[in-house]
C-alpha cells in the first residue's frame, strides 16, 4: 500500500508540481474553451492563453505574497 501511495505521490508531484491551482486553471480553461466552441459556437482560441497567463501570475502571487 505504501508503495502504491509513493508511486501516486511521485506522479502527482511530477505532473502537477508545487501548485495544484495551476493545473486546475489550465483544465478549467480547456473545458470552457470546449464548451464555447461546441455548445455556443464561439471560436474561443483566445481563452486558453488568458487562463495560462492568469494561472502563472496567480501562482506567483500566492508563492511570494507576504515574503
Amino acid at each position, binding site marked *: 500500500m505504501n508503495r502504491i501511495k509513493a508511486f501516486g505521490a511521485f506522479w502527482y508531484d511530477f*505532473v502537477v508540481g508545487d501548485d495544484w491551482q495551476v493545473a486546475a486553471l489550465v483544465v478549467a480553461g*480547456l*473545458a470552457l*474553451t470546449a464548451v464555447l*466552441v461546441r455548445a455556443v459556437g464561439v471560436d*474561443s482560441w483566445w*481563452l*486558453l492563453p488568458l487562463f495560462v*497567463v492568469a494561472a502563472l501570475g496567480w501562482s506567483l502571487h500566492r508563492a511570494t505574497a507576504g515574503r
Partner: protein
Amino acid sequence: MNALPLILTVFVACAVEAVEALTIVLAAGLTREWRSTFQGMAAALAVLAAVTAAAGPALTLLPLSALRLVVGALLAIFGLQWLRKAVLRASGYKALHDEASAYLREVAAAEAAPAQARRGVRDWYSFTLAFKGVLLEGLEVVFIVITFGASQRDVGAAVIGAAAAVVVVTLTGIAVRAPLAKVPENWMKFAVGVMLTSFGTFWGAEGAGAAWPGNDAALLALVPLVAAASAGCIFWLRSRKAAAGTPAPEKEIVRS
C-alpha cells in the same frame, strides 16, 4: 509544422537535465569507480529508451484531437511548473541551482558510503547513484520527447534533439572533468518553460475544438506572448521584493 522548434526545445530541455545528471555521474565516477557508474548510467538509459519506444508509438495511435487535448493540458501544466520555478529563481524568491555545491554534496556522500559488490556489480553505491540520477533527470526529458513528438507525429525528431543534447553535454563533461557550473541553467529552464507552455496552449486549444487564426503561424505570436508575460512577472516580482526589502536567498545546495 517545421521540426526545428521541436528539436530545439527538446535539445535545450534535455541539455539542462543532462547537466544535472552529469554532476551525479561525475561525483560517483571520480570519487568511487567508473565501471559501476557506467553500468548504472547504461541501465537507466536503457529503461528510458524502452519507455520512449513503448509509449511514443502507442500515443501516435490515438486520434489527433484527443491526443492534442490531453498532451496540450499536460504540456501546459508541466511548462508552467518550469516557468514558475524559473521566474521565482530569476526574481530572487528561490535560490539558484548550484551545480558546484550539488557536486560537493554528492562527493561527500559517495566518500562516506562503504564499498559493496552486488548482483555482478563491483560497487553497488556507484551503480545505484548513477542509475537513480540519470533515470530521474531523464524522465522529464522522456515526457517532453513523447508528448512533443507524438503531437507533431514526429517522435524521431524529438529523439534526435534529446540524443544530440546528451552527446554535447557528455563530451563537454569529458573535456572539463568537472560539473558544468557555468551553464545558465535557469535561463535555459525559462526558455523551455516558455516553449512547453506555448505549445501546450496551442495544442490544448486545438484539441478542445478551437481554430487558431493563421493555423501554425499563431505560434509566432503565442511564444513571444508567453515569454513577455513571464518576463513581466520577473520584473513585477523583483520590484515587489525590492519594496519588501528582503535579501536574496543563498545558492541552492540541495538538488531539484
